[in-house]
């Protein structure tokens, strides 16, 4: 069994060589590891490597292939890469990054104000939408001169994390 795993900007191939209970023998690229791996609580792994005690916490993303990984030192985004992901990635390389044409909220919140309307031309730095969460208002601004293509929410709406609120042309 082997997968490529992407950890932020680094990609490595992990191959399972042997496994008996919590004892795992595997290779990360060319480096072999003999490990003792157990899930101690849901999503919490304890790994012993050559005596070193590592505690790793995972939060699974929606697709089942993405994780947020917390080590003691820091937090990473990780992704399991298989044939499907590779295909998507290759295809993506050819196209423009879609995100730039969409405005989405990074956290759940409430739409307070939409000072623009569909079809309107906006200039870089102009506020497109204001979202409030936990007593803090965040203004989302145009990063370049654009035209508002579609407004998908209205004032007073509650939005989820990563929900697209506005599209630009």
């Amino acid at each position, binding site marked *: *069994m082997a*997968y490529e*795993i992407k*950890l932020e900007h*680094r990609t*490595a191939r*992990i191959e*399972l060589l042997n496994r008996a209970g919590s004892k*795992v023998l*595997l290779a*990360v690229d060319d*480096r072999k*590891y003999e*490990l003792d*791996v157990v*899930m101690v*609580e*849901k*999503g*919490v*792994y304890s*790994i012993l*490597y050559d005596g*070193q005690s*590592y505690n*790793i*916490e*995972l*939060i*699974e993303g929606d697709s*089942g*292939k993405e*994780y*947020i*990984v*917390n*080590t*003691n*030192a*820091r*937090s*990473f985004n*990780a992704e*399991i890469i298989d044939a499907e992901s590779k295909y998507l990635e290759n295809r993506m390389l050819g196209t423009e990054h879609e995100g730039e044409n969409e405005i989405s909220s*990074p*956290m*759940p*919140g*409430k739409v307070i104000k939409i000072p623009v309307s569909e079809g309107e031309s906006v200039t870089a730095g102009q506020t497109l939408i204001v979202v409030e*969460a*936990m*007593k*803090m208002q*965040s203004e989302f601004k145009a990063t370049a001169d654009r035209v508002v293509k579609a407004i998908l929410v209205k004032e007073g709406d*509650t939005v989820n*994390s990563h929900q697209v609120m506005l599209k630009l042309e």
Partner: protein
Amino acid sequence: MIRKVLVANRGEIAVRVMRSCRELGLMTVGVFSEADRKAMHVRYADEAYCIGPAPSRESYLNIDNIIEVAKKSGTDAIHPGYGFLSENAAFSDRCKQEGIIFIGPTAHSIATMGDKITARQTMTKAGVPVVPGTTEKITDEKMSMKIAGEIGYPLMIKASAGGGGKGMRLVREAHEMLPSFRTAKSEALNAFGDDSVYIEKYIESPHHIEFQILADRQGNVIHLFERECSIQRRHQKVIEETPSPLMTPELRDEMGKFAIAAAKAVNYEGAGTIEFIVSDARDYYFLEMNTRLQVEHPITERVVGVDLVKEQINIANGLPLTLKQDELQQNGHSIQCRIYAEDTDHNFMPQPGTVTHITVPLGLGVRYDGYVYEGYEIPMYYDPLISKLITWAKTRPEAIARMRRALYEYKITGVKTNIKFLEKIMDIPDFINGNYNTHFIEKNNDRLTVSKVCGTECEDMAMVACFIDYLDKIEKIQPQKFTEEFASTWKDFGRKRSVLRL
């Protein structure tokens, strides 16, 4: 005597107040918005009632609904916590009218201290030093230029009804004065419906140092020493400690006396805090009074050895203070870190969401005041404060070492928090040396935004955990095993049915 207390608040402070009520043998009544049915304070209270929809204005700020619950439940007294209605003079007054004890000061004290210009005037009359500036509201542009000239630059323009940085402008040179004066007035009008502003001298490198006071109805007022609150982001405190590294015994004594004079000037009763702004040269000026319990009150509790909520309740019961100024002392050192659900890499953007896993730091010298639990969804409607972590030790270096240890142990998954950010502060020389003011986070921004190093081996282990988790997940839904699984689903159902006899 008070027997039943309604806590008109939510989050960690509601639970904290109820804990002291329970220790006193008092019954507790919780109130909650529709977004808070599963909140810890509802579970903790002896009784709990819904007071309206999620937005604060319709629930935690709805005086009528809260009073209705108080009457229905036979409550003797209301504790407002901090925030929400805690500094609302009308609420204090309404409680009085309804024959319910408000655990806090009178409407008069709240109103006097709530309006910044009136507070400045009152303090000046009482001999408490205030930041040099106007004592009258200014509306006239010519007058503003004249006064600015007298005070000298740099200076601050502030909204009289202000708060939260709105209607506030820093003016460094004379030519900026008029445009700033106009914007400040217009912002103040928009935000507070009142365009009156005043002008104060701007203190460079300011420290925020506050004094805790307690005052009873018999007129006894004591102070419980200072708290250093200069570590702030977006004008909100992040870390507090006591004693302040800047303080000297003489200065403490002087400022403490002024804090008492300030409280006496408004016939204060209950627990309150006098905030001072202090320059690097240790010049100090009255800034404002918070007429309620502070978020950072636990560090004072730990070092002085009192329970401030119990003191508040005793005062509300009309009992005289049993603590005497000359018997009080600061024992050791205490630090509090505020744990926020926020993204420290993106301008401290708040992060509501569901907490999937928590490991609470415990052990010697650690106090933890929180309210979230595993599976709890932090609502988007309220403050992003998750918990407060308080350490104590004999010395400041040991208290810092203990905080570093506690933050290392503290794990929350599911929402982003500032735990790692706080951990980094514990390693910054300016903090370790106690050499900081309110510019600390800005000044140390580079060190605070760098991630801790997770070397190749550490990264490999992070990937291994994902790998193993993914393998085991796939194992469970492998297609070649599916037919077996499918069969066992039937079998499972059969077993469950026979057990349950449906």
